[in-house]
């Protein structure tokens, strides 16, 4: 009896608790719109008055260089402590800080200083951490100056699109060239890994003779997978034999690269395109060279670290490896490189990550300048200028055009480097902004490796 009464009471309580739900009405059709910009500044569109939104204040930035300027806050989501890319991501983030400091020192942008420190967060390269940190800063920023990792970025991409938060990714996955994947708000910088492999192999064919066989080694997915797809496309167009793709994993996971070494030795290709980390690059090249392998290696952007020249494989790397980069190396002669060196005031960064961090500042700067020119630096205003925007890298790379036909606008120029211990940061440029012929013969109408 009591039991029955109790369950009856429980049922009644539940019914009462659920009662408010009947009064539930949907407020809007989809995602919550971004917090509306403060009305104070919003004028008619096209009017001279500046429209501002979240992440833009009339008050100066903390520790402002120009105390009379307003402040535009940008976010950074990067791997700054214990994640697998911290060695690269820390100098990248340092460079971004220096980049915007220099911009501020030169007077800022149209009466605004830029602050990235306040909304820089460590994601540890873990998707849930990335999402948590993104949620923390997404309401306080005008745009995202850096978002590291494809999966991490995609985890919050829908929300970024809903909030119109323009972002520069530190990932060179081909998918970010296509609006179908990123809603047109992710401003990829330079080429994609897929393009890199295609153009890099063109360079190889020009300088080392056309290879009869090619092979890709890489981490599966957005990085090595994208690169491997480029190798495949190059082989198809140029009639080279495509040896089986060798997927691998970082040494923290795989232990060592012996399996890769034996597979590449067995396949014996003329050239191997690497889409892996620096330590793995050194191990594979060193072991293969010791085993009498005579082919050469083309390494993607993240395969290089100057410390490799101190490794036992230094001799083999210097002899057999070339590095590919979408930006000029440390020995570049552009205004961008000169500005970067000025900001560093004679110091050497730990590795080339610093150059990457510096270069990816330019697309964001171009977007902010254009938005200020249009008198709208709300997130929506910044997002609206991306399509058709042309970003100048001050000579560090060819100008980049966003939106439009991805195939026609794709950056195809590769800076090929040769390891050289005599040169600062150990990488000597041997081909400036090389552009091949194969890419235009491939179909670049969707991401090379699909987002699922």
């Amino acid at each position, binding site marked *: 009896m009591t039991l029955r009464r109790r369950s009856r009471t429980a049922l009644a309580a539940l019914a009462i608790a659920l009662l408010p739900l009947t009064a539930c009405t949907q407020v809007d059709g989809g*995602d*919550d719109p971004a917090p509306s910009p403060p009305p104070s500044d919003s004028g008619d569109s096209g009017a001279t008055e500046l429209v501002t939104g979240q992440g833009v204040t009339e008050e100066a930035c903390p520790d402002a260089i120009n105390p009379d300027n307003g402040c535009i806050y940008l976010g950074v989501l990067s791997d700054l402590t214990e994640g697998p890319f911290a060695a690269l991501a*820390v100098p990248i983030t340092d460079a971004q*800080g220096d980049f915007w400091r220099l911009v501020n020192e030169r007077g800022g942008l149209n009466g605004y200083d830029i602050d990235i420190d306040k909304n820089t967060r460590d994601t540890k390269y873990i998707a849930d951490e990335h999402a948590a940190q993104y*949620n923390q800063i997404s309401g306080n920023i005008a745009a995202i100056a850096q978002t590291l990792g494809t999966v991490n970025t995609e985890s919050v991409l829908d929300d970024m699109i809903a909030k119109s938060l323009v972002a520069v990714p530190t990932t060179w996955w081909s998918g970010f060239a296509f609006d179908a994947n990123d809603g047109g708000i992710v401003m990829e910088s330079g080429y994609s890994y897929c393009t890199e492999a295609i153009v890099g192999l063109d360079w190889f064919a020009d300088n080392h003779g056309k290879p009869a066989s090619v092979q890709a080694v890489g981490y*599966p997915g957005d990085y090595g997978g994208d690169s491997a797809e480029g190798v495949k496309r190059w082989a198809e167009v140029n009639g080279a034999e495509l040896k089986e793709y060798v997927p691998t*994993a970082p040494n923290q996971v795989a232990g060592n690269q012996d399996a890769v070494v034996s597979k590449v030795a067995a396949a014996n290709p003329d050239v191997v395109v690497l889409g892996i980390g620096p330590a793995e690059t050194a191990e594979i090249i060193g072991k293969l060279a010791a085993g009498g392998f005579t082919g050469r290696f083309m390494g993607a952007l993240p395969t290089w670290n100057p410390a490799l020249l101190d490794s036992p494989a230094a001799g083999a790397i210097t002899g057999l490896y070339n590095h590919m980069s979408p930006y000029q190396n440390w020995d570049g002669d552009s205004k961008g490189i000169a500005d970067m060196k000025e900001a560093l005031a004679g110091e050497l960064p730990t590795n080339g990550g610093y150059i990457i961090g510096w270069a990816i500042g330019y697309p964001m700067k171009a977007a902010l300048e254009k938005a200020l020119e249009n008198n709208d630096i709300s997130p929506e205003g910044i997002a609206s200028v991306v399509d058709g925007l042309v970003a100048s890298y001050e000579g560090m790379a060819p100008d980049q055009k966003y939106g439009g036909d991805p195939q026609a606008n794709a950056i195809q120029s590769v800076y090929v480097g040769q390891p050289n211990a005599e040169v600062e940061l150990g990488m000597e440029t041997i081909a400036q902004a090389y552009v091949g012929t194969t890419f235009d013969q491939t179909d670049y109408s969707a991401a090379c490796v699909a987002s699922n």
Partner: protein
Amino acid sequence: MNLNKTQTRSDRLTGRSTHLNFESSKGKVARNVSRGRGKLYTSYATNQAFLNTAPKKWWTLGFVVLTALAPFLVPLDFTYLLTLALIYAIGGIGLNLLSGYAGQISLGHAFFLGLGAYTAAVFGGKPGTVTWGFELDLAIVLPLAAIIPGIIGYLVAPLATRVRGLYLAVLTLGLLIFGEHMFKIMVPVTGGEGMGRGVAQRTLFGVDLNATYAIGPVIIKPEISFYLITFLIFAVLGVAARNIARSRVGRSFAAVRDRDLAAEVMGVNLMRTKTFAFAISSAYAGVAGALLSMLIGRISPEQWNLFMSVDFLAVVVIGGIATISGTILGAAFVVLLPRFLELLTEYIPFISVSSGGLINVFQLQTIVFGILIVIFITLEPRGLYGIWIRIRNYFTAWPFSY
């Protein structure tokens, strides 16, 4: 017969003491008698009741009300963290049933979280270019996310029941590594390494949870509705776990944990007990994994790794082994402490976000978090729940020391 005896005994009460005869009231004690005697139990049932003291009832009510109202009181990004804490609590409760109550150490918890996440993603997600997705309602997806990992847990349990202690830890570690590899190669399910896949859609009973709703003047944003649903699931699973723990099954868990041979001699079926512990723990992990994946928005095969298992072990150990409420405290600690450290480190002047100095602010946070855990485990091995017990005992005995 026993009943008759007690009946006779209480019938002997005479004079003013007749009001102490509670037998006919099935253990219910008059209010004037129980006042000031919080631990006066007059029947086994009330002693073992779900909330057996008045303070527990009030604390629970306060916790429920506060937790339900929390998302309306804090900023949205805190809502994310609170949701994460609830999800960690669900997964932690599952692990505590297995490792805390039944004493079966497991490093494979992340594998079952992954299984739940992928079950939810496959049944509730959109199909991709290479991935499967059936776009079912969460009302079907969430139970499946418990059932499928539960079944897998049930299937692997016989292996695990043959070993114990360190050997079991290594065996479950093997399971984790095997699982991670399977996740990496099962591309139609997981999207493959490096790319990952999208997650289950937030549609429950046909209601789109991505929309903003209003109940009168109260605006319920998508983040809040997901939080509330997570809270509801957490509450149901928390109560269920508490009930399991104080039932015959829970007592057999404890018997097996304390000495499995002795338990077997007493007639506890070892195989059945351990298997059930594994299955139920996996089911909890599955639900937590499904919710976690939906909270994050995208999942990749490499995230269900040893570090995640260790995170959940930390929740259990920091919260307190073999307590449900301790697990909730542990989850809140593990998820929220880094955020509080972040707020604190803003006030340390010489450390910034750049790596110019000795360390950057994020490295400092990681170091402090590690040190805090070490201090914690050293000073209070019974975890947060142990601290709570000490506080409670202090006030119970007040003004005396003991």
